[in-house]
């Protein structure tokens, strides 16, 4: 129905309509006709029925059974699931925090060490006596005393979101060691606020006063007070790149004048390269800095640590499927690159999982010490509907479980847990092997989750490993072959720890280790021998090489064996749906809005959204009943960058007044609207067409798809958005 016919039948319940469909601006302009079938069904009580309609209504009959389960478990198991979510997520969150803290700890300690060193260095210049502190003239004339000790902390990530937290924690760390700390954000160094803004914030944090005029002399007299003067003042600026250069420079110059009476030590976060301070600051400010460089862990390292600490811990129940993992990886590498969004995505996944999966409360069992006991207890109490739904899970159907009892479910879950533990051990071993060659855990993790890969491996046993060529796992295995002895020894020791749970492999690893040790002794013995005989023979070298090569080979074979036998992705195990989240679409829509593209798609295929009977019949052809903006945008596709307004208007007019299509189309419509349409269509005035045209153009401009005519080309508008 054309928008011109707004005061029609549906106007009786516009508000309820809006609420019901959660309409977005575009919908409001063009209300859909209720679908024919519904209309027939509704009959006289139209408005009331409309409110009842939910978007999923056509499927309601099929879903009724599922609904019953839902209803049932809503009252009983929903609280359980929420409880389980809280438990799982709080565990994950705290362990993420721990992991990140551990990563930063080394650097933080180094920074603290440097801060105290710098402080003693400043103090060694000339200890100002308290009577002089209040004086405003520079006390010392030596130039080296004007230097500001500056720690440049390289965050190694262009996005600074992750580092906000890091710097906050750094502040807390230094505070706990007795420093006075102020965190300044880069926003405080804006040209608008000038230097007063950052000084004010400095005073607020150190002195805890907010004077009308922020004078640094206040800080000096505060610092000269007895209880303050024995600790360094640390000022942390989180992102150097985003600061206004001139304000920062002025700030630095001022601080450097005062550095003797106020021993301020700066810590600045640098996101990009060593050139950043050079690019931002003028030379007179630069030479006041006495820089020292610190480097935080790169995002990739942190990511690996988080995966190792969270997703690869047997005691955390929550898992992600292959596609989800791939999505997270791609999102991290290609789009965002921050841990913050990774963690957020993980949380969304976690929430969605517990919301969608009725049995997910069983996940809590993995966290338990004696999970089998937990499961058998819970599963025994499960009602039949739930049990059935558990055994109806696709992963289970595949395996054709014998009996649908709670006991079987509990056993299945325990088996799942065991398999997962083995899988984790294998992944960690692979990671350790690939580590020396900078293969990232994230990559191995994703590849190891691939179910197809496992299935392929399972299907053709005879063709060896069936490892994907060029895959990360394959690389890792290959690298083992040419490791030097010392590294190999280290590696195998780590393996020994990792494979604790798998007795078979564990014993093999031990065997390898003893072999290596024996060889070590052997070698030293040989060396001694050769020393005594003063004749280092080439033969002994050869032998030695051969020996280590053999060990390398054995290690590689062992690793291959691990991959073959234990690297069973979680999605290949029965009941994995209970603990594993694999719905990538939810995550994608939550994380990537992609608004421009969506707008364009929606405009071009508006009936997909509106689902009105009038437009859905024709696939691609333009109908006058379509929404104006949609028509206009479709017409615009035929033009190039520049759209001639006149042509555009003419074709628009032609489309909406086209009688033939309209008439044909009308016949199919419900009699009610048909009557109105036929009455109206002939007398669409030129003025109203122009008005509609203008409105559509404005809408396109608002959505950012068009640019209004420029002075140079008043007769043309320009298309701004490109392609889909």
């Amino acid at each position, binding site marked *: 129905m054309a928008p011109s016919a707004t005061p029609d039948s549906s106007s009786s319940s516009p508000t309820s309509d809006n609420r019901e469909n959660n309409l977005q601006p575009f919908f409001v302009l063009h209300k859909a006709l209720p679908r024919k079938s519904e209309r027939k069904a509704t009959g006289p009580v139209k408005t009331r029925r409309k409110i009842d309609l939910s978007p999923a209504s056509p499927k309601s009959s099929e879903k009724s059974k599922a609904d019953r389960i839902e209803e049932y478990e809503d009252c009983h198991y929903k609280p359980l699931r929420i409880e389980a979510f809280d438990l799982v997520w709080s565990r994950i969150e705290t362990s993420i925090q721990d992991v990140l803290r551990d990563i930063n700890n080394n650097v933080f300690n180094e920074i603290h060490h*440097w801060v105290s060193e710098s402080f003693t260095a400043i103090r060694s210049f000339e200890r100002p006596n*308290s009577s002089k502190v*209040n*004086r*405003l*003239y*520079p006390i010392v*004339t030596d*130039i080296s005393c*004007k230097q500001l000790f500056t720690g440049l902390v*390289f965050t*190694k*990530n*262009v*996005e*600074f979101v992750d580092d906000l937290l890091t710097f906050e924690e750094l502040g807390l760390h230094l505070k706990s060691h007795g420093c006075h700390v102020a965190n300044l954000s880069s926003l405080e160094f804006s040209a608008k606020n*000038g230097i*007063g803004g950052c000084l004010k914030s400095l005073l607020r944090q150190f002195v805890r*006063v907010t004077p009308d*005029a922020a*004078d640094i*002399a206040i800080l000096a007299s*505060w610092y*000269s*007070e007895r209880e303050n003067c024995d600790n360094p003042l640390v000022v942390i600026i989180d992102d150097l790149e985003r600061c206004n250069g001139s304000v920062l420079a*002025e700030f630095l110059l001022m601080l450097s004048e005062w550095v003797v009476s106020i021993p301020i030590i700066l810590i600045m976060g640098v*996101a990009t390269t*060593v*050139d950043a301070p050079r*690019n931002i600051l003028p*030379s007179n400010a*630069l*030479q006041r*800095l006495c*820089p*020292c*460089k*610190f480097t935080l862990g*790169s995002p990739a390292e942190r990511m690996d640590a988080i995966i190792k600490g969270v997703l690869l811990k047997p005691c955390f129940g929550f898992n992600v499927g*292959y*596609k989800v*993992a*791939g*999505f*997270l*990886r*791609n*999102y991290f*590498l*290609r*789009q965002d*690159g921050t841990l913050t969004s990774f963690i957020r995505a993980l949380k969304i996944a976690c929430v969605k999982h517990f919301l969608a999966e009725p049995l997910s409360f069983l996940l809590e069992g993995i966290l338990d010490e004696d999970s089998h006991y937990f499961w058998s207890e819970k599963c025994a109490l499960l009602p039949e509907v739930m049990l059935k739904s558990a055994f109806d899970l696709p992963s289970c159907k595949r395996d054709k479980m014998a009996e649908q009892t709670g006991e079987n479910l509990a056993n299945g879950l325990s088996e799942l847990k065991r398999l997962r533990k083995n899988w984790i051990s294998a992944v960690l071993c692979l990671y350790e092997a690939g580590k020396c060659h900078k293969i990232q855990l994230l*990559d191995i993790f*994703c590849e190891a989750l*691939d179910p*197809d890969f496992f299935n392929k491996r399972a299907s053709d046993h005879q063709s060896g490993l069936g490892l994907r060529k*060029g895959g990360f796992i394959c690389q890792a295995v290959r690298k083992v072959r040419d490791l030097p002895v010392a590294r190999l020894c280290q590696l195998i020791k780590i393996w020994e720890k990792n494979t604790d749970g798998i007795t078979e492999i564990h014993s093999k690893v031990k065997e390898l280790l003893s072999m290596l040790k024996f060889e070590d002794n052997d070698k030293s013995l040989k060396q001694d021998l050769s020393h005594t005989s003063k004749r280092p023979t080439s033969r002994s070298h050869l032998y030695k090489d051969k020996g280590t090569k053999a060990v390398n080979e054995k290690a590689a074979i062992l690793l291959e064996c691990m991959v073959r036998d234990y690297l069973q992705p979680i999605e290949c195990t029965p009941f994995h749906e209970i603990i594993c989240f694999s719905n990538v679409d939810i995550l994608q829509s939550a994380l*990537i*809005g992609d608004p421009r593209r969506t707008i364009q798609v929606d405009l071009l295929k508006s009936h997909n959204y509106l689902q009105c009977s009038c437009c859905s019949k024709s696939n691609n052809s333009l109908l006058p009943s379509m929404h104006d903006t949609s028509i206009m945008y479709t017409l615009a596709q035929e033009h190039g960058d520049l759209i001639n307004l006149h042509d555009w208007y003419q074709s628009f007019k032609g489309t909406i007044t086209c009688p033939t299509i309209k008439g044909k189309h009308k016949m199919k419509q419900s009699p009610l609207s048909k009557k109105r349409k036929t009455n109206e269509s002939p007398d669409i005035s030129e003025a109203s067409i122009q008005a509609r045209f203008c409105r559509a153009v404005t809408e396109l401009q608002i959505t950012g798809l068009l640019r209004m005519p420029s*002075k140079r080309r008043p007769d043309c508008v320009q298309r701004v958005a490109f392609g889909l």
Partner: protein
Amino acid sequence: MDKEGTPPIPKRTTRSSSSITPSKNAAKPPKTSDPYPPSTLNDLIFGQPISLDSLLSNFPGRRIQILELLRLLGPPNSPLLPLFIYGGSSTGKTSIVLQIFRHLNRPFVYSSCRTCYNPRILFESTLNQLLLHRRKVVNGYSSAKRCERPADFVNYLREALNDVLTNLKGHLRKSSSEKLEERGNGRMIYLIFDNVELVREWDKSSGITHLLFELYDILKMPEVGLIFISSTSPDTYYSSAGVVEPIPVLFPDYTEDVLCQIFMRNQANPKLYSSFLDVILRPFCRITRRVDELSTAFSPLFKKYCEPLSDLGVVPSEDMKRRLFCHLQPHIAASLNEIFKFESQPSLEAEANKEKFTRKCNMRKVEGGEAFDEMDFHISTSAKYLLISAFLASRNPATLDASLFDSTGGSDNRKRRRKSSGKSIEQKESAEQELLMKGPGSFPLERLLAIFQCITSVAEGSLEEDQQEDGGLGAEGGDIGLMSDVLLQLSTLCNANFISKGGSCPLEGSTRYRSTVGEEMALKNSIWCLRSLMAKPSFSIVHSYLTGTLQKLISRFENDCHILGNWLTESFDCYVIVQI
């Protein structure tokens, strides 16, 4: 205003009257429970006067200026016309003035316009000093008077000066019999304003500079001396006639000899250091004569210089000097261009440090090409592509875009270009030179997005193929179009100062951007792009352009650094082979 102003006055009088007795206390840190010694007039004096000889010897090469200043200041109690001391930065103006007052032992008030960054703070801090006010917890760290307008300032200033002067007279009378040197000499008080040149920038139209220069006329107090210190010459200030013009005193830049004397002060091993200075001072003097810049440059160089020596007390022989020079020589040129150097914690020094110590070192040290093909910080793929498209948009004239990124296919394009390049290499070179001189151009957002899309449409294809090779690592469900969230990436790049947001174009009225990425960065980035796009059949157009940039960059880098150049040409060759 008045209400606020009146209460401190009785306080002040009590303070100054009580100040006579504990005068000695003020010099030492107090050991009593009260951390604040009462403020006295002593606070206006530098303390511990020095002799003229030590003053002169402390400042080599400044004898004329010091004597001139002393002459102008005259004997105690002689009135002073305003002084205007000027000269380049780091020529000793402030230090010498302060030390002269230390020598003369006269009271003064010092306000630096750098610290006092707006009129109000300047006024208040001057008044605080005059009123002997101290900020502390008790008074909420507030200043003595709230003073924002110049008129208020003049009034308060007159009041405060009168009080101080009567106090000074009182002291003189009382202390004339006994310890004269304890008090300041004379009945004069001097106001010193440092960094006056900054005042001009506060508010272009406000008359603070006028106020300061007219202060002498306004106050009409012969006992007040005004001294202005500025790094710009007096011509840059005066505009109004009828004001008593300050007496200018110029502090010229140091000569090389004087610099030598300055650096020779307080050296542990003068012989060694003088041999060091012989080598280093001349080349550096050609660049700068500022003592602060030189001394920051010299200290690491001297460390380098001493590196081969085991005993720092050694007196160098000619032969040793030569060897030391040879050791130092490669570092001189590098540090001539560097103003900013890094020192890492020794504990951090492991491998990361070696890799990227400074750019210069990096170029010299790196043997293979590993350090070049990756940027040493994380940047997402789509941001990388955006960066390279911004670079292209900034360095290329917009007219080239159509031919580079035309969708008609690469083959005929390439032919065309070959012909033209054969014809007019010279023209091209001159155009290139011109581009270089102009620097990066600005571009509208749409152009950036268009180029970005051209590149990514190739890149996305390549990514898909990569994924097929990988066995579809996250191909289906997890595939994300690079085009989405572009604006977010753009703002990230803007934040990182890789792209700067320019003013809007007057004709079109939309924001324009400019890529401020250095060539080295662009080089790394384009190498990365090439790698990721390599082995794609469909990428010829973009590639031919990228290689163009590469070639340019290579030729520019070849002069600088051969290793890098060689490595680049190699990789370029192999790339060309791949392409063919």
